[in-house]
């Protein structure tokens, strides 16, 4: 039964006309993400039940207001004479799709799976001529009795998950109070030349080599059907996991306590390796981080700041979560400002012709803890009851996305979205170690009936 019915698709524009003739070049970190796109869903249960369509109209007005501060979002992609992407701020607008779901939000959340959830986020692949292709898509789906789903999809060329979340927060601020609390900043990435640093240290090669290893690789496709499930780990459980992972085999504690991201990624790393049938070591994993804070950029920096690094799985046992967590911690700590600037310099000199598939060849573990989606409040005090992130397309060995769970700021509660082949996903879901921490299954997958 088609629960979500499409009403219409239109273009929304900003309220203030953009001054013509402005261009915004994309950075190297933007360019390498060309093959990817993001799809995010925010679910709300609003207190006031309105007539159908009234809420959508109100949101349409506020998004137009908000877009006046984001000329890049309503611009279009063109290539410079040197073949680099840039945005022409031509005031063309973004596409908005309106839909209606004939169930209540609770019913939907109980029965949702990957396919159904992606129906709440409209997306169109890049046209042959990207100049007429909208880079951002928004879908508003109204549920019965006051439920609302806001879907945002965008090309990864322009925005990483933190940036896309910031866009929705800006929209929410505009709807609630009429102005954006933390306005965006549009500037290039910091460069060594600007800061007058002369590097007199050895460039860090591991991260650069990781990027090099995906250059030139062919188009990534997935031959098995991928599915996604979502688990929520409560604060107490994560604390217990941290204690467990922090304990060394000889009974002492590790010097530095692992963070929730490190332990959860280690947990899933080991579990997924087991599910893939690898014994004696772990598969290589690529960890991604938002480096805004490390690069001393403000939170409103618009663009890609996500950097990937490889954690090698040799020498690690699939049963030793603590060692895995330590390995991840080491790699994460190496992703400091200097190293990232080295990477940026390398990428700028490299002049990549064909953008690589950053997410197509390794298991990806993305740290989305900076994203802060729950402060996007559209009405009253209703913060999102659930948020889902999808890093598309789902090709490659698998993905694990880790972000905060709703309700509680300095909490250790986390939501983990795992995308794997169906068979492997089943194994991971039934993994005893994971089940020890009693996660709530927020979204499952419907098994194919053979």
């Amino acid at each position, binding site marked *: 039964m088609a629960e979500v019915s499409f009403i219409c*698709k239109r273009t929304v524009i900003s309220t203030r006309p953009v001054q013509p003739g402005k261009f915004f070049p994309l950075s190297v970190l933007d360019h390498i993400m060309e093959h990817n796109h993001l799809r995010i869903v925010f679910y709300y249960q609003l207190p006031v039940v309105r007539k159908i369509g009234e809420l959508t109209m109100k949101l349409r007005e506020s998004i137009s207001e908000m877009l006046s501060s984001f000329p890049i979002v309503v611009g279009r992609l063109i290539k410079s004479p040197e073949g680099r992407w840039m945005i022409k701020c031509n005031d063309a607008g973004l596409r908005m799709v309106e839909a209606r779901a004939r169930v209540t939000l609770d019913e939907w959340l109980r029965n949702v799976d990957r396919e159904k959830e992606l129906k709440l986020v409209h997306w169109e692949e890049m046209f042959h001529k990207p100049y007429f292709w909208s880079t951002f898509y928004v879908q508003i789906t109204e549920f019965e009795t006051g439920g609302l789903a806001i879907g945002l999809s965008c090309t990864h060329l322009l925005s990483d998950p933190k940036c896309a979340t910031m866009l929705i927060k800006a929209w929410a601020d505009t709807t609630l109070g009429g102005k954006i609390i933390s306005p965006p900043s549009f500037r290039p990435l910091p460069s060594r030349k600007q800061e007058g640093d002369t590097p007199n240290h050895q460039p860090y090669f591991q991260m650069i080599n990781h990027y090099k290893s995906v250059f030139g690789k062919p188009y990534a496709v997935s031959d098995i059907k991928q599915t996604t499930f979502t688990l929520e780990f409560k604060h107490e459980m994560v604390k217990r996991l941290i204690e467990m992972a922090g304990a060394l085999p000889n009974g002492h504690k590790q010097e530095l306590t692992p963070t929730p991201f490190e332990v959860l990624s280690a947990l899933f790393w080991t579990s997924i390796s087991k599910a893939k049938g690898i014994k004696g070591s772990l598969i290589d994993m690529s960890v991604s981080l938002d480096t805004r804070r490390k690069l001393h950029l403000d939170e409103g920096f618009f663009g890609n700041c996500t950097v990937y690094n490889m954690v090698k799985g040799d020498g690690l046992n699939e049963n030793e979560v603590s060692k895995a967590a330590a390995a991840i911690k080491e790699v994460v700590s190496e992703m400091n400002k200097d190293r990232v600037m080295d990477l940026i310099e390398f990428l700028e000199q490299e002049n990549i012709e064909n953008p690589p598939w950053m997410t197509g060849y390794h298991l990806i573990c993305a740290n989305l803890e900076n994203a802060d989606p729950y402060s996007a409040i559209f009405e009253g005090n209703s913060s999102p009851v659930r948020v889902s992130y999808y890093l598309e397309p789902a090709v490659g060995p698998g993905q694990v996305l880790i972000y905060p769970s709703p309700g509680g700021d300095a909490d250790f509660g986390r939501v983990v979205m795992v995308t794997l082949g169906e068979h492997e996903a089943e194994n991971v879901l039934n993994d005893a170690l994971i089940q020890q921490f009693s996660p709530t299954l927020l979204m499952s997958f419907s098994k194919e009936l053979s």
Partner: protein
Amino acid sequence: MPQNLPNFSGSVRLKYVKLGYQYLVNHILTFLLIPIMLGILIEILRLGPDELSKILKSLQFDLIQLLCSSFFIIFIATVYFMSKPRSIYLVDYTCYKPPINFRVPFSTFMEHSRLILKDNPKSVDFQMRILERSGLGEETCLPPAIHYIPPTPTMESARGEAEIVIFSAIDDLMNKTGIKPKDIDVLIVNCSLFSPTPSLSAMIVNKYKLRSNIKSYNLSGMGCSAGLISIDLARDLLQVHPNSSALVISTEIITPNYYQGSERAMLLPNCLFRMGSAAILLSNKTRDSRRAKYKLVHVVRTHKGSDDKAYKCVFEQEDPQGKVGINLSKDLMVIAGEALKSNITTIGPLVLPASEQLLFLFTLIGRKIFNPKWKPYIPDFKQAFDHFCIHAGGRAVIDELQKNLQLSAEHVEASRMTLHRFGNTSSSSLWYEMSYIEAKGRMKKGDRVWQIAFGSGFKCNSAVWKCNRTIKTPTDGPWKDCIQRYPVHIPEIVKL
């Protein structure tokens, strides 16, 4: 250098000669009357009071003669006052201002065009060239149904647009003038391309609960000049019905008329027509003469439909694929020029000062009798009018009229800026232009305004208004929040 100086001094001298001639001819009656009155006064003073009383006694006024003469005078005066047409006052008017999120920037319009006409790149390029040279700005608005991909022009959305556009204008008008629905005696609505049943005027009667004996009229199919046709109709009705108010609504509903085909001649209206409407309150009540903004002086209508080419130059038809659109022929400008000439031939004698009319007469006689090669004298309408409101049909129309009537850039500023900010809103554009002039603070008491509208048929209609009271700024109207930005320079071609 020396060559220019004599020309300059020659032209200055010519200017003063012209001024002198105009002053003399326009005030000829005064010039003749004053010496006569002076003569009589001197004669009276010369004669002295005794002589005067002797002359009066000698006239031997009979009582009957006296009574008959006074009755005669009173009779003539009564006939004169009774047959004088009632003064028609424009109490106030309002224009609809669409919400800013209905706006359609050029790039959005072109993108939609490309998505809808993806099999006809030539048509898309044509639309782009039109838009670049159109003189429109980035804030013109289209109704919601046209923002959809693909557009969904249903009857329901057309009615929805009509309701938003008309009811907003009427609500504003009622607030401004304080008129109550039960006081409206005549209701005239003109909307050319959307004519549902029940009519738009019935829709207004239903919404505002107007009286059951209201005289309502709905004019459809009469093109962009229908606004002045409605004013003419209102004027005629107000001559017949004493002590009445008339509400005139001029609008064009865009939703059902968005051409979805690819014929080039029919794509032009899509690029130019935008949402808008105006609500005007006319009255013949004497108590409104104090608070009214304008007084209607003349309405002149010219219809060139008897000529086949003029009749077919703006023609609604189906294209080879069966999609309905409005076909604009290539000789539109020529026909418009002819229609204008006809119209000013009629309006000229009514409004031009005697000096211009004499000059025109002399050149006409000269051409007929002496030498047909003499250039026809184009009367200087700038002397008859202080403000011009030329229908913002498109940049070409305004350019053409500016050239033909020899108007300065300031005279056509209202039309150009209306085209830029609101697009071609069809019959209501004249009211947006009036509103611009008022918002700029240029409208003073006694100023005469000439509204010219062209429309399918082919018709050219004019209305002449006289300003009744100086309009103070800041005015409340569609230009309220943006008047300080205007006038803007509109480039010949906007690069898209």
